């Protein structure tokens, strides 16, 4: 098992004919992801990497039974693409696009909630169940099948962490990049619940960063509901207040959202927080050997 996706997951690519969509479709297919369809309005009937392209999500879902969609669509219209996925019968939407207007995400998350559709992102690198399915822009080669569940607001930092884990012999059950935007889909709490319930996940790595209070809420959730070992890392200890550190959501506002607060929240409930990335596998091994 794993969470959210496995080798049978049928995946649709929205924006498959675009530069990024086409490139990463190839990468996902190479990894073994079961890509069954693409959508690109006006390009219906074409193929990309031998994958059939449809004009609408509805057409694609009807023809292929896809249940998961990954979105490579320019940010100004990515919100509409998310709505189309949910309306078209998709059950899990992964939005890679960076720079989606916040109010579009407010509207989209409300609609998806009503429809019972899950969302990851926007502005995220996607997710992977190593050895089974990679839906995103993640470098599949650094992941290794195993029992660590990982969730992160950051992309390349995740890759660094994963490669350190893999080097240390700690494989992963599923790794989820939840994205760096202030309003996003699935977040720590939902994923913690999934990992807690996933028999294949033994321990959890949570990679946070400055901005908002999602890490504090995650700590609260862990305290009340998670019995598996958790190790955390918080990026942005040196970030100045009032500045967005790349991610739209990575900003310390009005003295809250700082790394210190987040680190304190985890440590106060006994979740060790690595000060250096290299400490993550070390801390994890310590916890697992207990």
């Amino acid at each position, binding site marked *: 098992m794993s969470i959210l996706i496995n080798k049978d997951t049928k995946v649709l690519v929205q924006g498959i004919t675009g530069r990024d969509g086409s490139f990463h479709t190839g990468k996902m297919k190479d990894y073994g992801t079961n890509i069954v369809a693409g959508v690109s309005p006006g390009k219906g009937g074409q193929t990309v990497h031998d994958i059939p392209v449809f004009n609408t999500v509805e057409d694609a879902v009807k023809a292929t039974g896809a249940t998961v969609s990954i979105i490579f669509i320019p940010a100004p219209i990515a919100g509409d693409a998310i709505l189309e996925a949910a309306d078209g019968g998709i059950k899990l939407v992964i939005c890679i696009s960076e720079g989606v207007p916040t*109010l579009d995400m407010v509207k989209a998350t409300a609609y998806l909630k009503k429809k019972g559709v899950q969302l990851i992102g926007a502005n995220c690198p996607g997710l992977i169940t190593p050895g089974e399915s990679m839906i995103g822009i993640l470098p599949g080669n650094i992941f290794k099948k195993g029992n660590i569940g990982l969730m992160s607001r950051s992309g390349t930092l995740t890759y660094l962490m994963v490669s350190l884990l893999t080097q240390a012999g700690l494989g992963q059950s599923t790794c989820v990049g939840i994205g760096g935007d202030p309003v996003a889909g699935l977040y720590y709490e939902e994923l913690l619940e999934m990992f807690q319930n996933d028999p294949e996940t033994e321990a959890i790595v949570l990679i946070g960063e400055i901005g908002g209070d999602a890490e504090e809420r995650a700590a609260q959730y862990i305290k009340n509901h998670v019995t598996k070992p958790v190790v955390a890392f918080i990026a942005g200890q040196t970030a*100045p207040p009032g500045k967005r550190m*790349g991610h739209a959501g990575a900003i310390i506002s009005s003295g809250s959202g700082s790394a210190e607060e987040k680190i304190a929240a985890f440590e106060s409930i006994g979740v060790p927080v690595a*000060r250096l990335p290299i400490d993550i596998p070390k801390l994890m091994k310590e916890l697992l050997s207990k």
Partner: protein
Amino acid sequence: MKIHEFQAKEIFSRYSIPVTKETVCYTTDEVCTASERLGYPVVVKAQVHAGGRGKAGGVKLARTLDDAKNAANQILGMDIKGYTVEKVLVAQGVKFNKEFYVGMTIDRNTKSVLFMASKEGGVEIEEVAKDNPEAILKFPIDPELGMAPFLARKIAFQLFDDFSLVKQGADLFQKLYKIFLDTDSSLVEINPLVITDDGNLLALDGKMNFDDNALFRQKEIEALNEPTEDEKKEIQAKESGLTYIRLDGNIGCMVNGAGLAMASMDVIKHFGGQPANFLDIGGSSNPQKVIDAMNLLTSDKNVKVIMINIFGGITRCDDVAKGLVTALEQLKMDIPIVIRLSGTNAEEGLRIIASQNLPVVGSLSEAAQEAIRLVNAM
């Protein structure tokens, strides 16, 4: 993106939210003329993109022409948190009874617009939030419902005792919500919202921030942008596909990915160094990006050493290494560089860099320590 108080209040006015009578002025003469026309007392207020201008002496009451002249002379040209005051707002002084706070922002947890209101207006809301969080009422707005009349009234009943004020407030809250949506705001505040002596609500101050991601559809708002020199650099960097934020240290950082860039800064700090910037070059091996990034870093005279930290993901490290080599050949710079590569094809990448006699290190911790050593050795 931020705008000034006077610009926010102009937008409020367009939606028929009552604001003080006021004029924006760029010179002491203009302040004097405006004050005479508005009638005393007037309030002279610095217009800068920084909070806490009251504490910094950027707001002054003037009861006479002399007062106004003095206020203008003192405030114009003043420095507030690094911003030079180039204009002031001269606003009619208003008698009022009570001060309220109303504001809207995006709430990450409910994934909605959050309407906030407090009877403790007129002070910095962050202080209220810290000292007496219950004094701030919070209402997440269901986007399907919006600021429905009943909801606006429900909020107003919690702020005001008099029903005439409840009705005025409810009307104002609905307009404020419409402004938020229409302009893709990320923050709208009226602090204080006051009850005037004749029993009407009036916005005495106004603040608006906007969602940078939505500026493409907010051309009117975008036109109000007045970036500082640092912000201009950030905007220029953005146009080259780089995310850059200048800091006060001396170790220049060039990293791919925002999270990794933050973590790299943190590691430098951890070992006692001072990062000079946040710089995310994104996911590409294009040498031009490296050249642009290097030019950005070297334009900051504080930068003594450059630490490059690349994690090869989809982009392979050997491609990145080739890009780096090409870029560095063209740049011919004399600032020492520490390069750290890892991830996909890292060994091949490191080999390419080493063959060019560029200094490479094995881990992020080592890179940071080496950079600090180089700075300290100067």
